[in-house]
């Protein structure tokens, strides 16, 4: 009897262990299908005779577009229009790369691989060379909007053997709009409290930030404020302070005839000397190197200057948090945009490609399915698609009124804001950024963003476009693929600059910079610089 019980226990333990192992080994089933199968209902543009095709689509947080239960009206409409049945495969912002790496290695990638921003990087070329992703058709004339988008310089630059391998996730109509994705927000009411006028010189800025940190600008009677708080260390070099020339991470032609990452240049050294001085004076938030709540700090009234994106959409994010954390303080009376000090009166805009991140397509996607996917994207890129994703169904949720969007959705009495579209149609939550960052594209006309915010951002955008220099960033240079360049992808220039700012060895700036350059070169930077420069010369990109 005793032996039997022991055996029974053993069998139970083993069953449990193997069940756990099998559970661990089973294929991930993080999928939801909500769009109904079935042909055209006669209302859409779809061809009712076509067979419905199943498409798996993967994107950051796409699970929110497919919450389960009955699909919403827009989900049904899209499904009927293109005769497709979309199945979501969710990835998060933190695990997308790891998931894709694993799925690529095990041949389990979904049809649409959406949560990825690796154009020009090692993985981009590896996926193409290894046949993980398929090329787009040569003839895209059946998809007029896509056809137009694929003519952008920053898309053409990344063709491989004359083929396009991705659809860009369009952020702006052109790259100049990125000018507002870096900037400084300042507490102008605190400046008034302290009797400080608009800063101009580097010393003015240092004095201002130190005053914010030490002179009780909020009249609280306690030492509870900091000067400048950056939303990330990266923003300090990435044109957050644009008066020092181009100091961002893109490869640019320098005066010595070599192409190198601008972040390693002497211009960046000059910028960092200023930041270091501010840090040593106590004007820069002493926790800046490890901080991850800069926005909260500013919105809660604990920081005098916030270095962050200042476009319409991003200002609204600040406002949204502000009204929660400081409901008694008027945002518009308290905040304005600063431009930072300038060495010679000139400012250089932040720039990026007109798109950020891309959609790739599994090599196993056949031509029929690819056709449907392209139809879907062509519509999502179009004005009609974008308006539907942003504001819902025309006539029901919005109407055009004298060339402007007029929302018809309910208004929340407490906040004065319209019901978000994704609340009415969950499908639009992530689908609104599958083909394009629709929220960014329409942010200067989006009625869901308060007029005061839009005016503030539009005015500054106009100023920057008219007066600030565009950096000389050549996308064809960025697309150069040489092994030496891929091998230094892990270098952490930003980290090294943080160490420069916080250095306590007493060495002078030039010595520290030379040590940093020597270390970068020892880790392969100079080899990469020479390889990229030679390749650019061979391709006729430079003389």
């Amino acid at each position, binding site marked *: 009897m005793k032996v039997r019980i022991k055996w029974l226990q053993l069998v139970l*333990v083993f069953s449990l262990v193997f069940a756990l192992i099998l559970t661990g080994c089973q294929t991930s089933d993080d999928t939801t299908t909500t769009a109904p199968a079935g042909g055209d209902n006669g209302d859409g543009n779809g061809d009712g005779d076509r067979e419905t095709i199943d498409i798996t689509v993967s994107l950051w947080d796409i699970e929110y577009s497919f919450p389960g239960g009955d699909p919403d009206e827009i989900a049904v409409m899209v499904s009927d229009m293109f005769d497709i049945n979309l199945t979501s495969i969710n990835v998060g912002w933190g695990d997308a790369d790891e998931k894709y790496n694993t799925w690529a290695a095990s041949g389990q990638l979904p049809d649409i691989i959406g949560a990825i921003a690796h154009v020009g*990087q*090692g993985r981009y070329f*590896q996926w193409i060379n290894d046949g993980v992703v398929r090329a787009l058709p040569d003839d895209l004339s059946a998809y007029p909007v896509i056809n137009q988008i694929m003519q952008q310089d920053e898309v053409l630059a990344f063709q491989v053997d004359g083929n396009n391998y991705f659809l860009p996730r369009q952020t702006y109509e052109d790259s100049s709009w990125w000018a507002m994705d870096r900037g400084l927000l300042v507490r102008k009411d605190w400046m008034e409290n302290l009797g400080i006028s608009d800063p101009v010189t580097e010393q003015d800025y240092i004095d201002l930030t130190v005053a914010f940190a030490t002179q009780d600008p909020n009249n609280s009677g306690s030492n509870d404020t900091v000067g400048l708080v950056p939303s990330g260390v990266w923003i300090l070099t990435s044109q957050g302070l644009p008066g020092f020339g181009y100091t961002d991470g893109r490869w640019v032609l320098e005066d010595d005839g070599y192409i190198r990452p601008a972040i390693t240049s002497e211009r960046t050294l000059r910028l960092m000397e200023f930041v270091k001085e501010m840090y040593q004076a106590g004007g820069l938030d002493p*926790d800046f190197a*490890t901080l991850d709540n800069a926005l909260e700090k500013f919105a809660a009234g604990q920081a005098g200057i916030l270095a962050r994106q200042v476009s319409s959409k991003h200002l609204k994010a600040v406002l949204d948090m502000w009204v929660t954390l400081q409901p008694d303080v008027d945002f518009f009376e308290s905040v304005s945009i600063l431009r930072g000090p300038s060495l010679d009166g000139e400012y250089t805009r932040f720039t990026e490609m007109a798109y950020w991140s891309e959609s790739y397509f599994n*090599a196993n996607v056949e031509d029929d399915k690819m056709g449907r996917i392209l139809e879907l994207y062509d519509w999502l890129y179009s004005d009609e698609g974008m308006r539907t994703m942003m504001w819902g169904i025309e006539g029901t949720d919005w109407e055009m009124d004298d060339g402007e969007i007029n929302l018809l959705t309910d208004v929340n009495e407490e906040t004065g804001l319209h019901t978000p579209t994704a609340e009415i149609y969950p499908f639009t939550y992530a689908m609104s950024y599958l083909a394009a960052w629709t929220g960014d594209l329409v942010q200067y006309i989006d009625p869901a963003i308060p007029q005061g915010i839009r005016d503030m951002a539009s005015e500054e955008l106009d100023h920057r476009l008219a007066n600030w220099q565009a950096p000389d960033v050549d996308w064809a240079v960025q697309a150069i693929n040489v092994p030496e360049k*891929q091998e230094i992808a892990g270098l952490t220039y930003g980290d090294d600059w943080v160490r420069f700012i*916080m250095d306590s060895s007493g060495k002078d700036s030039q010595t520290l910079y030379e040590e940093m350059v020597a270390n970068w070169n020892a880790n392969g930077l100079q080899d990469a610089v020479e390889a990229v420069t030679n390749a650019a010369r061979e391709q006729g990109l430079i003389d």
Partner: protein
Amino acid sequence: MQKTSTIAPALKQKHSLSRTWRKCVENKYLLIMTLPVLVYYIIFNYMPMFNVQTGGILMAFKQHNLTRPFVEWDWVGMHYFQMMWRRPDFWISMRNTVSISFIRLAFEFPMPIFLAILLNEVHRRKAKRIFQTVYTFPHFLSWILVIGLMKDLLQINGVINGFMTTVLGRQAFNYLANDSFFANYAMLVISNLLKGVGWGSIIYLAAIAGVDPTLYEAAIVDGANRWQCIRHITWPCIKATAVILLILQVGNILNQGFDQIFNLVNGVNRNIIETIDVYIYRYAFQQSMNQSFAAASGLFKSVINFSMLITANLIAKKLGENNLF
């Protein structure tokens, strides 16, 4: 004469085999209990090493390809090892890994032993259980949560600096972003101890539980005090376990807690606490994807770890202590 000399070893071998078999039969339940662990190691450690499809460890010597079968991959020899060795960053991370490892051996390794002995000296059962639960609980928190708490406590405007500046009148110190070896290593050791010391002490508590209580009774009758009981009974009884764990720890010299360090590393302390695992992640996965490079780094690490394990085992053997094999 010659006949007896050949038969004797054969008989001896047969006798030894039957003794081993008898032992196996006697301990069959214990052996069966080890099977799941064996299965785990076979599935997750040995099978990937000898996987025919991916090439296993041979991947380190070939150019990885995502779609073609392993046999069609190009041989690249020692390319990925050289790529790793020629970077100063790699040697910095090696130095950090070894330093952290020795510091952990010196300061972290003995602490679970002390805790187990201390807990053993608590005679009130309820109090003992409470202490044990309190010390063990942090093990179940993820590093991301622990480091989030650490950030709140240790940042310049955090609780600890607030206490130091307002109550003690000391200057604030940036515990999370500084270039001091002492401060960084102390942070690693203390946080790891707070999280893991209770869990680590369980194995020693189990060893102590196996000590014959009559030994203590006899010692007390002979007039031994608590300290003498610990020194002459408890410690000798758990020493064997400690030596085995020490050997295993030495064999893990290049595995120094990826989660903890990955979440604590930043621009200022990277050159001090970035370990080989974080370095591999940075170059092989974070910026680009290079499985062959990762395989080469992993193989290099395993060879060093294995050599260290063998060396530690040999030293233990020479000193007459317990050893693994």
